[in-house]
């Protein structure tokens, strides 16, 4: 398993943890490159998905097909290509790396938010309307809480995509864990290449754990029990 031995040797070398371009610095940079696009995508896609889901006629209607098709189509966009296009057209600007990652993160969040809300039982929705709740109350007090598990799944998926893909920001000279991969590749040092990749995977696993904790905290116990039995 030489990939791991390269990675381990490099990660455990003390000097890689100090100075400029050190591991902690690049981890922080990487988190920055990941968190901002994720937040922007969530701010756009969650309300949009929830609103569309609320207006839909259920989780398997035509609207659902359209949204799923749109999400599939956007998965076709090669992030590297989009990044390069923005470099050539925009040059150095925050938008250059932000836009591709936001485009990457929106589809999973949108689809899952939509399906979460659209999949809320007809009877429950009718009951909420019958109880005199305004649209806002229906959405916020009934539909979103029920849809929360799926919304969190969407956010989690998007988070993992973004953490893994933020490595290509290094291709245009930016920092983050991709820096170790690109620089190591350019100078044939497989330590940083393997180490950088391993750190990204570890970061992604941490994101998974974070979402597991979030889910435990936010999703009402009743829904979690129901989810597990399905």
């Amino acid at each position, binding site marked *: 398993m030489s990939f791991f031995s390269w990675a381990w040797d490099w990660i455990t070398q003390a000097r890689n943890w100090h100075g400029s371009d050190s591991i902690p610095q690049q981890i922080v940079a990487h988190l920055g490159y990941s968190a901002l696009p994720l937040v922007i995508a969530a701010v756009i896609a969650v309300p949009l998905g929830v609103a569309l889901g609320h207006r839909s006629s259920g989780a398997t209607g*035509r609207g659902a*097909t359209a949204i799923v098709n749109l999400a*599939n*189509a956007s998965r076709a966009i090669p992030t590297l290509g989009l990044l390069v296009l923005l470099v050539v057209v925009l040059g150095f600007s925050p938008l250059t790396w932000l836009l591709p990652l936001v485009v990457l993160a929106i589809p999973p969040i949108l689809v899952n938010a939509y399906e979460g809300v659209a999949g809320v039982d007809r009877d429950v929705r009718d009951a909420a309307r019958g109880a005199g709740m305004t649209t806002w109350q229906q959405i916020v007090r009934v539909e979103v809480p029920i849809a929360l598990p799926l919304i969190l799944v969407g956010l989690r998926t998007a988070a993992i995509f973004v953490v*893994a893909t933020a490595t290509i920001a290094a291709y245009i000279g930016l920092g983050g864990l991709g820096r170790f991969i690109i620089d190591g*590749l350019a100078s044939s040092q497989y330590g940083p290449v393997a180490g950088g990749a391993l750190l990204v995977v570890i970061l*992604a696993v941490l994101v998974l754990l974070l979402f597991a904790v979030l889910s435990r905290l936010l999703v009402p116990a009743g829904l979690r029990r129901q989810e597990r039995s399905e």
Partner: protein
Amino acid sequence: MDWSWIPGNGAQIWQLTYENAYLGIIPALIGLVISIPLGILAARWRWFYPPVLAVVNVIYAIPALALFIALIPTFGLTDTNVIVALTLYSMCVITPNVVAGLRAVPASVRQAATAMGYGTLRRLLAVELPLAVPVIIAGLRVAVVSAISLASVGQLIGVSQLGYLFIDGEQRAFPTEVYVGLVLVIALAIACDLVLVGIRRALTPWAVRS
């Protein structure tokens, strides 16, 4: 945008598109072939699925470039390297769908099949898998589209497909090349997606069309 560049480089563009299709479709199909038995086992043995899912999540988190590089010692700078990596990603996408599709078969249907005298294997092949086809193909669609798109990263280890147009376009500050590459990758992926939708319709004649 230099439109004249396109006809002037038609042969190269066609070659790269063909390569991209090859590098995208083959891994998805191989991923399918591996995912179906794997998914059947995971659906059957409840204890088997969580570890499989954990492994799948970890593999999917590996950045494509890093995976290509990890495979260099074994597969060199070849098409095979990219195909192996993209096959792994495809498996990550399709296997959960196989499991979900099989598990979504209502217990009543399974019981009805057993009551009609279907053995386990025949029930699997004649009832459960066919009913799971829409979900499996949904996974296959994601796998193919992602593979076609991700193959572009292969250019960073010298495996040429439409990603070459991105890299060369960037190196020469030539937006036309990048636009052409982008449009073709997206068009290719969407075309494959539509073909799979058509296949799904053909394979599930009982499904209600809206």
